[in-house]
């Protein structure tokens, strides 16, 4: 290692310029790189590097260290670091701030009551629709949408159908009530497919719902016949 190397102190002996030793150079080399030396010392070090391969090597190596470690590419983070950081920020910041924030000071704070209002409104609409829609007592029957709404019809307890007055298939004649088809439909009664068949022609063509109503009416008719002793 020593072969061919210049001994800087010996070279500079007797010169008028400031002479510094290798040890002094090593002591100041970091400040030299950072540009924190006064002009005289800096100049002396530059002179030294010119004649001392050992110190020039130390300088080059140290500059490499500063350059390499200062590169952005040295800032590596573990895989998934960014995602975990973002998740933790979301988890921790959102509730903390929501608790500390002035009441309703931010637009997002209105989201909860707004959502509650929407739910209440939806519930009211649902209730209304359950109350007033054509709720059919029989799950098979077609609603009597095609029966004239002002037509006078008869309903009775224990039956799911409404009938034209005098229909032989009225289930419990003792409990007969008279009302309009519209009212009967609103109460969930379906038209009798026998006495009101003329109004259900189009319904039959729509498929299984009307057909089921016919089947149900047939069942009721058989019950009526049984009760009548046929």
């Amino acid at each position, binding site marked *: 290692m020593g072969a061919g190397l210049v001994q800087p102190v010996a070279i500079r002996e007797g010169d008028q310029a400031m002479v510094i030793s290798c040890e002094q150079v090593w002591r100041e080399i970091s400040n030299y790189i950072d540009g924190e030396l006064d002009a005289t010392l800096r100049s002396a070090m530059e002179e030294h590097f010119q004649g001392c*391969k050992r110190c020039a090597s130390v300088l080059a190596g140290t*500059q*490499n260290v500063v*350059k390499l*470690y200062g590169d952005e590419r040295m800032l590596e*983070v573990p895989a998934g670091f960014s995602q975990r950081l973002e998740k*933790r*920020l979301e988890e921790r910041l959102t509730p903390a701030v929501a608790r500390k924030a002035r009441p309703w000071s931010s637009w997002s704070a209105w989201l909860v009551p707004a959502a509650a209002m929407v739910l209440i409104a939806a519930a009211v609409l649902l209730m209304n629709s359950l109350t007033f829609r054509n709720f059919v007592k029989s799950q098979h029957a077609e609603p009597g949408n095609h029966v004239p709404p002002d037509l006078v019809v008869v309903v009775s307890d224990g039956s799911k159908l409404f009938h034209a007055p005098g229909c032989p298939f009225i289930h419990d004649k003792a409990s007969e009530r008279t009302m309009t088809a519209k009212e009967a439909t609103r109460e969930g009664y379906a038209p009798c497919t026998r006495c009101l068949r003329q109004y259900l022609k189009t319904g039959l063509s729509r498929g299984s719902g009307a057909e089921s109503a016919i089947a149900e009416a047939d069942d009721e008719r058989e019950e009526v016949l049984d009760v009548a002793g046929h």
Partner: protein
Amino acid sequence: MVLTDSVNDPEQASGKRERELIASVQGGQRELFYELVRPYERRVYAAALAILRNQEDAEDAAQEAMLKAFANIRKFRAEARFSTWLIQITVNEALMRRRRGRTVVMEGIDNRHSGRGNEESEYAPRDFADWREIPSEALERKEVRQRLAEALATLDQKYRQVFVLRDVEHLNIQETAEALGISVASVKTRLLRARLMLRDLLAAGWEQGWFSRLPFEKGTKPW
């Protein structure tokens, strides 16, 4: 006459954007906080790792530091650099964790490398190989980055943290001293030793060709 177009200057534009983000977060737009700190997440992690060494602890400290930065964002003043402020919070968090003993710190091998444990004593370089400038392209290789990280990890705590804040995080001497709560003179002494020790540690790699683009001379083949 040279006209400076600040709109087209990416550095100025990003600085302006950062100031806007800070003001927005200070004004209550907390959802912008991650956008504000995202450019610094690597630096925050590196600062924590320099002090805690353990990757999991460093990540946890980095996350906690970000949360503390958010909690104190209203205290941030525009005259400071946001990155420096963030790094200082991270250093405080990491130092506090280390003091609490939550992290088992494996002290470095400073004594083995320096031959002397006292930082006031002088460090003499050991290797005088004829170094040339290492091309920055060498860092494209993961193996090189790994070697550099390993060398840094072997440094004693007090040298490593000064080196990381100064040479990796690019804080100035004064900022490094303030972040660590030590004197400017101590920063300079530790920085000098850290740089020289790393140089010696990497000298072996230099001689073995770690940093050259090819592991063999051009025109020759290893087989």
